[in-house]
């Protein structure tokens, strides 16, 4: 759903957590309100504020870069095809997934 204020349109972003995220956060998803024009990076800033270090230390390998175990889809499309964290959001469904590492012990 999109709401309008006198100054700025607000986006409603539905976030679903998968992989290791629900175990880490104790939550399977939430809705986040963001200003129009917001990016995935700004969504992650918002989530870092909501969940604190517990989220940011696990999701980022360094400032502005997701760990290689992270997989993010916006409306079904991998953000790697949309410019990564710079990908623009609408009233989007975002899947935030932390996969286990593969292979061999």
């Amino acid at each position, binding site marked *: 759903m999109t709401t309008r204020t006198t100054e700025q349109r607000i986006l409603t972003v539905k976030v*679903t*957590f*998968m*992989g*290791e*995220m*629900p*175990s*880490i956060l*104790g939550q*399977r998803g939430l809705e986040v309100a963001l200003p129009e024009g917001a990016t995935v990076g700004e969504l992650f800033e918002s989530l870092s504020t909501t969940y604190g*270090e*517990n989220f940011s*230390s*696990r999701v980022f*390998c*360094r400032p502005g870069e997701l*760990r*290689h*175990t992270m*997989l993010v*889809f916006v409306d079904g499309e*991998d953000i790697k095809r949309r410019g990564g964290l710079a990908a623009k959001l609408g009233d989007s469904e975002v*899947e935030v*997934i*932390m*996969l*286990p*590492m*593969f*292979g*061999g*012990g």
Partner: protein
Amino acid sequence: MTQSKLQSKVVLTACGMCYIGCGIKVQVENGVVVNIEGNTDNPQNRGKMCAKGKAGFMNLYNPNRVKAPLKRTNPKKGIDEDPGWQEISWKEAIDTIVAQFERVRDTPKKVYVQSWDVVGDNMFWVSALGSAFGANHVNVASSATCGKVVHPVEFFSGGGFHQQPDLHYAEYCILIGTQFGIASRGSFNHHLTDMADARARGMKLVVIDPVGGFAASKANEWIPIRPGTDAALGLSMLHVLLNELGIYDRESLKKHTNAPYLVGADGRYLRDAATKKPLIFDAADGAVKTHDDPSLRDPAILGSYDVQGRPGRPSFELLREHVAKYPPEATEKFSTIPAATVRRIAREFGEAAHIGETITLDGIELPYRPVCVDWARGTQGHKHGFHNCWPLKLLNIVVGSVNVPGGILSTGAAGKYPHHWWPEGGVDGMLEHGGQLMPMPHPSAFPGHTPAKPTRMDLGELFPLAPHYHTLMPLTVENPAAFGLTQQDMIEVMLHVPVNSLLGSWGDIKKVERLYQSFKFIAGFAVEINETTLFDDIVLPFPTYLERCDFITGMGAFCIPPCGQDDFYWQVRQPVVEAPPGVRHPQEVVQEIAERLGILSGLYRLLNHTYKLEGDHQLKPGKRYPMAEVVDMQARAWFGEEKGLAWFQKNGVVRHPRDPEEAYIGTFLNARMPVYLEHMIDKKEQMKAVLGELKLDWDLSDYQPIGDFIPCPSYHAVQKGDYDLIAVNFKFPFVYGAYGNENPWVNEVCEQTNAYRILINEAVAAAKGISDGDSVWLESPVKKVRATAKVTQCIHPQAVGVGGHFGHFAPGMPISRGKGVNFNALLPTDMEHIDMISTALDHCVQVKVYK
């Protein structure tokens, strides 16, 4: 018998008797499998078969196979408990599993999914079920005792999953703690002939191992080494090469490694104030530049420099200085390898490297470095496993033999068909992003994650450079509070594939028993009732590889294929015979469980990503698929509409040539390999802070940019005199892992070759009054077992060799029950035996042997 079975046919499919997946032709007469031959068209094995592969179809007719879902009626679990199995319907089995998952839906970290089914698709399907559910304890093709170090190291120092000597061009090959190309490892049947050809061509093969086994028998030279002292040897060889002989590939070190990165007094890189990039001294113009400055012409790897008032030395200079502490005379007392031998081997290795020479392949000039040191499980299963291995990789790096013709190649690292995948650089210009055909996150010890207070039962948060952590579970379950955990953090529900982890993936069997007893509910797929299955609450029958349909037929095609310019290939697995009534495709069972849990769309999201399925080839929410349809869709997605399942059923295998750029990526990588692990400093400081909060006093001495040799606890135990021998495990080519132990033909091979016996050195046996064939006690600090002695000259006098994964005790395995020794059960399992970097469990253990 139906009319359709009254016929002869040959079916092209893939072997499933180990993780490799050789191409096979299965002969079926009137519905009965009567023979298996290798498929000569398949590059994986080129028609060759091993003994267990030939014997594989006997598993199909195992009279003790599980053919219906079972539930236990005895609530008490234990090694000696009879589960009281009762056959139940599929509905009851799945109802029960779904109810248990529902019970912990709000705390998904209480679920543990163990997906070590590396034979086929279930490694991804079962793990995706766990990830779709939100579980964080999910093992994807990972075992507690497999590639704990080699994969995390290889991805940051080679770019791929594993390493592999380039037998096409190698002139000098050293195998340390591995029987590559002779008795084990990926693409085993392929490399047998490559190894034979290389030896016939004149390649010198040196095997350094406590056990003079199959590999040693084919080598020019076998050098016995005391278990767990490989780093002592490696550091001494580095010293001889770098400081005594001055043999190293200067150009490779300058261009392709962080050897020229300037390091300050605090051990960290000196960085550009504005960009924070590491700095290099350019000897060409005397200027200090960032590592990626396009004007760099002659990066200095020796000397010391002043960088705006800050002293700095190239990291290679620090490496040279560090290894100078390890002259062969200083390490001889640990490794037992004479100093003169170390010097000779180092010299031979260095001289055979042909540093400066090139070779032209398909019109492309490449470095020619026909030497390699290869290592695997034998070197990594130690208390200081990471640094026991790393100097061995450095030997390849310093002579420039990584990913070039004749050297050590990174498996599955890059390719252009059917997709494009390639390792890439990352932070500080270093090799960070490994290459994998399947886009699962690769295990890598660089750059690692930020340590944090643990909430995982396996303490994953406290091992920032390890890919998997399950070796810790038997410890935390004993006393969660000691690690900052609570009972709420403990796993309650486990789902596993038919891996026998209880026997083969952990250590001290009493602790492992208590771990499995602590799980309130366990459901597992099973072909037979093995030791792990004894602890299950629900057992789901699992089809054999001759009854299954898989798009992935093992690890051999996508992450451990033959390297060099051998063809890329792909095959699928198709059923040769129908599964018994009541046995379902496990992927279809996974779909049903996911649908019942309301996570089918999540499962498909993950699988579509893993298998790179797009558009019409995607698995779509709201629908369940038979496996034949899935495999057909996957094949068409990757290889074109004309190459669906039917094409593979008829033709067997897709082949595609690899060009030199794909085969030898070293020259083409836009990333540097490390000779200096600067990130260890940060990780150590981060760990100290977290451990301080938890009031844990862990030894972090292994977190250093250049490792030291530190002996294993078994070394000290022997020095102290409480024990006089060190037990080690080794592999047989006919019982790789535990695959095939219950196969009557494999058992016959084991009995005829005395594989069930333990190896004791002839002189040691004589001193103890032990003769060949004697029954003896084998006693470690945690387990005492009866064994039969095989007296031989082919084992280090301080070692005892325990081969294979034997010692079964499950009543459901009457052929293998009571034969041989379960090596893992001998291993003490505590923090003193866990590598603080990789979480590897120490696999050399002090023992006594007596009558």
